[in-house]
């Protein structure tokens, strides 16, 4: 089945991005397709290449980048939300791309299910 995911909160502050990641991994393991992961609102902060958590903590950003590389995921960062929060091409982690809100709507249309993770 085609599943789309949207994430509304940044890394570390809320569990949303963690839960979304583990959900996506489980869906892929079950043979589903992750049609797109859309990062909206503070969710855009998950895409910062400058993130550097303590060594004994998970790296939420690189974890998404790796999942995207392993499974050819489409990780889309909302451009308006990103500009409001200082995420641009110059500090965008590998595997993410910046685009418009239309990508969220399109994912909602094309996927069989859309699941939101937030605060």
């Amino acid at each position, binding site marked *: 089945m085609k599943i789309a995911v949207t994430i509304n909160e940044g890394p570390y502050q809320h569990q949303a991005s963690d839960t979304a990641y583990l959900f996506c991994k489980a869906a892929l393991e079950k043979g589903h397709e992750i049609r797109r992961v859309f990062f909206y609102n503070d969710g855009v902060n998950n895409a910062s290449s400058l993130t550097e958590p303590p060594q004994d903590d998970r790296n939420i950003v690189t974890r998404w980048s790796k999942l995207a590389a392993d499974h050819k995921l489409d990780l889309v960062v909302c451009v308006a939300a990103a500009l409001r929060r200082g995420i641009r091409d110059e500090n965008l982690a590998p595997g993410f791309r910046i685009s418009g*809100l239309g990508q969220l*709507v*399109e994912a909602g249309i*094309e996927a069989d299910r859309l699941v939101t993770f937030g605060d």
Partner: protein
Amino acid sequence: MSEGTIKKFMFVNRKAPYGTIYALESLEVVLITAAFDQDVSLVFMDDGVFQLKKGQQTKGIENKNFSPTYRALDGYDIEKLYVEEEALAARGLTEDDLLVDVTVMPRAELGKLMDEMDVVLSF
């Protein structure tokens, strides 16, 4: 691509305006979804009904007053605005306090409507 597909999108607004950005961002997605010619419904539940309160004056908090946008929805053929009856009453509001014409509905009815949707986005 998805040409021709029309899905039922519902936007569930449960939060007050200005304290958080969600009310504003919900409106942004609503407008884009309408531009994709989808079937759009907006629900205002719980504190979300405050988004439609008349007379918002945001100068003092130095923030943008986005409430006029609700009046503009009509121009984008977005006409399905549902407001939770019990939420209005619990907040001392009546239909007269609202910026736009809406359909006031008991929450049980809203639950049934939700069941019929293809995509539900919460803010």
